[in-house]
């Protein structure tokens, strides 16, 4: 079984978000780039599965749509234990565009993992779009993933509960919270191995984008916190009722 983990490179979430004067572009100075946190969780699970079922899983590949500047993020993924990395050479535009690019390599894989959304543009949908484009099944909201012989077992969220499903491959699994618990940490050995592993660069295909992030703005800053001391509990609840009006 070959596993493909689709990842994106996003700005570290502790980065202070600033835009240019027209609100058209993120100011990238000083930004640290990381593996998108959702993708890091799915990658962690893929590597755990490979260790657990080394006789069934032959390879964990990581793919990204991006320009050369995303290669450090790919190296991080390799350092975590991925066997190979593929970069489809294009600036990632929207989910539709990214999914179309991923079709260039996805057909070789039995199990394709994607995170819920990128923490930057929060577009979502890449996993499901990719599945639709290559005409395979997808399962979303997956909080647990395991392999049972050549089948995949998942738990997914439904309204008010959870379903445990057996899924046949090929399939795209869109993972969420729970698919792995603690993100993997690269060992020194992993980092060194990563330097030797190959990053395969694939030319992009022509593809449309369907949405455009036209401009940005920062939300209004919250007013300063109104403090109450522990003897003013009644006052606090009165404020919630009559001032903020969020309580009956």
């Amino acid at each position, binding site marked *: 079984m070959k596993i493909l983990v689709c990842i994106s490179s996003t700005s570290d979430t502790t980065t202070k978000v600033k835009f240019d004067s027209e609100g058209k572009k993120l100011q990238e100075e000083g930004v640290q780039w990381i593996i998108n946190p959702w993708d890091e969780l799915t990658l962690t699970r893929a590597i755990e599965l490979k260790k657990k079922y080394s006789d069934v899983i032959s390879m964990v590949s990581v793919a990204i749509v991006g320009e050369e500047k995303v290669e450090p993020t790919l190296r991080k993924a390799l350092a975590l234990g991925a066997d190979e990395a593929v970069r489809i050479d294009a600036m990632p535009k929207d989910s539709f565009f990214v999914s179309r690019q991923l079709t260039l390599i996805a057909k070789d894989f039995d199990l394709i993992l994607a995170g819920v959304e990128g923490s930057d543009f929060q577009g979502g949908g890449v996993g499901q779009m990719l599945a639709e484009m290559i005409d395979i099944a997808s399962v979303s909201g997956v909080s647990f993933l395991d392999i049972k012989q050549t089948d995949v077992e998942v738990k997914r969220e439904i309204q008010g509960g959870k379903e445990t499903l057996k899924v046949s491959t090929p399939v795209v699994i869109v993972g969420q919270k729970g698919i792995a618990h603690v993100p993997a940490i690269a060992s020194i050995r992993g980092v060194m191995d990563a330097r030797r592993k190959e990053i395969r660069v694939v030319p992009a295909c022509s593809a449309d984008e*369907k949405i455009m992030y036209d401009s940005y703005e920062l939300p209004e800053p919250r007013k300063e916190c109104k403090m109450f001391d522990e003897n003013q509990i009644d006052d606090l609840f009165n404020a*919630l009722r009559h001032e903020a009006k969020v*309580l009956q």
Partner: protein
Amino acid sequence: MSVLVIIDKKEKSFSSLSLEAVSYGAELAKNMNQEVFVASFGKLDDAQCTQIANANGANIISVNNLEGSLFDDALFTCIANELVSEKEANIIVCANTFPLKSIAPRLAVKLDASFISNVEGLNKDNPISIFLKKVYTGKALSYVKALSKKIILTVSPNSFGVHNIPQEYNVENFDGTKGESSTLELIERDMGEDKLLLEEANIVVSGGRGMRGPENWPLLEEFASLLGAATACSRPVADENWRPEDEHVGQTGKIIAPSLYFALGISGAIQHMGGISGSKCIVAVNKDPEASIFKFANYGMVADLQKVLPKFIEVLKNK
């Protein structure tokens, strides 16, 4: 041309997220002078139809042949596509619930449509092609343009609300392509306790490490219960198994936007704030006056939770 809203049932009734999609779709349709249709997978009874109609969705389509079917992303997308053709829909609003919202991106591929997830309410200036959404883990907003004529949306929970416009309804029965999933097999379904869904709750009471241990949660639960609130927690609490994982609210947990959020013993790390920045009002209680949470909260109290939680409960009981 029309607006099609797609929702599904949560056991007997509809979640506020489904009803919000109905109200939103209806408003969009009104702005464009078009009709709105609400399609639900599975047989509907009178009470359920009334719920939909009251949320402003009078034209109801009941996809009967899917009653009891296992949700399969691909199969249900095919049926959604049939509904889109039937009603000549150019705007589709999918309820922002699992697993239904997974139809939206697949349908976007089938229709060559623009999919915009989690739109923040309706854009009054340009309601039909530019939508506002949160980006950068909720730290900023973006005006997103749909480039295709067909648009598929999900609405950011609680960003629009559920209308209450009681009216007569009409129901049409629709039989989509028959079929059972060929790739999924159900092993078990666990409906859990009848807990209030976190994403739907108007008031949420959340506990962090400052609660000191799982044994202190009954007080928090009592407080939540008196408020009619859902309970949540920070990541360390879920990681330590003090609370179930599905209560974890934060960047890699659930992202919620209740009217009122109590952060009890939560320090206010950026990753946690990413999950709750959409809350209308945040109340923080923490022993540490330097806790970051006080930079984000609307109201705060520096106090020992073990001392004040019982007093909060008393205040609510005496009301």
